[in-house]
């Protein structure tokens, strides 16, 4: 008994950090990063994107595509914003955008015809300022369809990587600080670890091992920091570990986004790469990517299985990395291009769970320009957790998804005076 109790005490004291803001591909978050969005009509490639508000109350969303296919082009950035009602999902294809987000939530523009880039989306308040709303989830599916010589399709889906916003830390500007002393959002990882098959590995599948598939992997690497006037960069150490436990490393500096075959990270001759199976002598391994200088980094791996007897038959899967610890350095995501000029307002027509737009009068639940005693009672109920925020969204003046004492006081003042 004493041993068990001691284990409880020691275990409790030694266990991992208290639950805090994290970067993760599994939980709703305030800032989503899609490391690879690809559109190329010549190869039949497009990206289907979905994004959902996992909260009962509506949320604003500001997004920014950055195109690295031609980063010098005037349309390198594509900014847009929209609103999502409580529990509302939205889906669009990058090539087409979405003319109207259901519920009068705004619109989503298409990307340029040739696009290889990154998408970042941040939760905002009704005025378009970043808000502490860890409510967004999203994923992207890179799809391909070709008709010649025969119809073929390919799909690889990954979850967006989400950064939690830190309570009471957002300063409302367009430079989003990830980690560090002035963190507004959860930090990027110290390293990312990918479980891969080395390029050129051939897997024998089926109970009789008669089905063979050759494997090749591409990495989409994106810096955690995003520049507007000048691009971010990162100096990375790539460490490959094979099944014997042998390790080799290579250091390379990358721009804000790099999409590269695994065996061309270190050389233009894949067969000579340290990431090629010919060098590693085992089929599988891990690749750990650690920033040394510059920005932190996020990544996804696109692993393609190829039929050696018919190399047009191929199928791709997307794999997210393991995230190792947290960076102590800050990364800044510049989100300020262009400044929002319009704020579409959501309407309540589509669903009983939808909510009206920006609160013009804190505490004015019914929008009649005054705050009544029953509305104050509702606000107190929400603050105490006895009612959902959707019962009276106008109490949430800062759009952070909860009601604080200052918002209750503002409502009382409005009740005593005029809105």
């Amino acid at each position: 008994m004493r041993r068990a109790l001691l284990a409880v005490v020691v275990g409790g004291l030694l266990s991992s950090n208290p639950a805090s803001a994290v970067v993760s591909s599994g939980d709703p978050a305030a800032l989503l990063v899609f490391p690879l969005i690809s559109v190329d009509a010549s190869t039949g490639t497009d990206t289907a994107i979905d994004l959902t508000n996992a909260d009962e109350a509506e949320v604003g969303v500001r997004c920014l595509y950055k195109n690295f296919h031609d980063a010098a082009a005037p349309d390198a950035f594509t900014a847009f914003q929209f609103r999502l009602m409580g529990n509302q999902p939205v889906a669009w294809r990058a090539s087409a955008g979405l003319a109207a987000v259901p519920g009068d939530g705004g619109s989503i523009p298409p990307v340029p015809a040739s696009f290889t880039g990154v998408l970042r989306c941040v939760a905002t308040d009704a005025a378009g300022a970043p808000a502490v709303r860890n409510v967004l989830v999203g994923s992207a599916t890179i799809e391909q369809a070709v008709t010649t010589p025969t119809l073929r399709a390919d799909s690889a889906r990954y979850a967006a990587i989400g950064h939690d916003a830190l309570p009471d830390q957002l300063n409302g500007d367009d430079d989003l600080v990830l980690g560090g002393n002035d963190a507004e959002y959860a930090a990027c990882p110290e390293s990312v670890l990918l479980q891969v098959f080395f390029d050129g590995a051939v897997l024998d599948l089926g109970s009789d091992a008669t089905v063979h598939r050759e494997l090749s992997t591409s990495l989409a690497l994106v810096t955690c920091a995003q520049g507007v006037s000048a691009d971010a960069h990162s100096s990375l150490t790539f460490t490959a570990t094979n099944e014997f436990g042998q390790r080799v490393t290579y250091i390379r500096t990358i721009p804000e986004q790099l999409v590269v075959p695994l065996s061309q990270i270190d050389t233009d001759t894949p067969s000579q790469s340290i990431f090629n199976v010919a060098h590693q002598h085992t089929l599988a391994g891990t690749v750990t990517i650690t920033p040394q200088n510059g920005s932190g980094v996020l990544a996804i791996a696109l692993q393609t299985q190829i039929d050696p007897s018919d190399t047009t038959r191929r199928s791709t899967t997307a794999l997210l990395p393991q995230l190792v610890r947290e960076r102590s350095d800050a990364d800044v995501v510049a989100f300020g291009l262009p400044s929002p000029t319009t704020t579409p307002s959501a309407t309540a027509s589509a669903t009983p769970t939808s909510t009206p737009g920006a609160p013009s009068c804190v505490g004015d639940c019914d929008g009649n320009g005054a705050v009544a005693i029953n509305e104050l009672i509702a606000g107190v109920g929400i603050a105490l957790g006895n009612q959902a925020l959707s019962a009276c969204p106008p109490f949430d003046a800062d759009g952070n998804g909860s009601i604080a004492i200052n918002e209750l006081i503002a409502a009382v003042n409005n009740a005593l005076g005029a809105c």
Partner: protein
Amino acid sequence: MPRPPFRVATVWLTALCVSALVRPVPAEVTTDRGASILIFPRVVADGSTDTVIQLANRSDNRIAAFCAYVNGAAASWQSLGFTVDLYPQRPLYWTVARGRSETLGEESVDVPAAPAEFRGELLCVQVDASGAPFGGNELSGQATLTELSTGDSSAYAAAGLQGSGFNDGDRFLCIGDETTDTCFIGEYDPCPAEWVLNVPADGATDAQLGAGSQVSSRLAVVPCSQNLRDAEPGAVDIDLAVFNELAQRFTGQASVSCWADLSLADVGGQIFTRGMLGTDHAEARLTPAGEAGGFIVSLQTTRTGAASAVASSSAITPHRRGPAAVSDLIVLP
């Protein structure tokens, strides 16, 4: 001089309270951090599909994992257990149809094949050198399924449950913090309170493949509670809330015993279908019904061309939110 019993009790009670206060709020299932239990909800080796499992030891220590194939397709619930050694920072792979028996340097790998016509779950639990469960949080894993005749493949990350910092090393794995007759304190993080799925409406036309094409999805579900020792499968009832792109809500229920690979077209009174939803995309919330325990899922979506001329699949471990209120229990053999 012996200490008065009441004083000892007071000290222990105080320590226990302090421990409870400093114990972190439980996290949930993870797919991107090291864990002590890995659950692969969809593993298939049935002659038409094979699955490649990749495990990695994220630590600088030699560790081991007790794994079990849990057959969801068999008439009676069956599991096949085995132990794999994982050397520091090393990965390991095998194919489920054949297993792997090989010598890597001076070390051997001996992973059995799954039983014939296998469709089910793979469970892996980190154990110490004596085989006792251990919450080291040093495991990560992923699975890739390949359809053998077409080569169509999809991959997903294993759902991981992290150790809480306390583990008594017995065969009863206490998941979540609820105190029960068996569990004094949680040894592993709880299963999720809610899964959040972004899914195309079942039967919607695929924009890229055009007229006559359609999108469909399947959901593999494994109850978190399972008794491998006595071959007693877990069972869960699931509440479903599906929201279309107008945020309109549709509800239904599903029940799973042992393991299920559900076609979303057939779940909850067709609430996932394009015809019911009226939009091409949906969000779904899956929660344990009533006092039901937690569960783990994996979502696979397939785009099929007109007249089934082509098919392409992708998989994902969906998002989740919050810790389940009810604890779960895994009993190892």
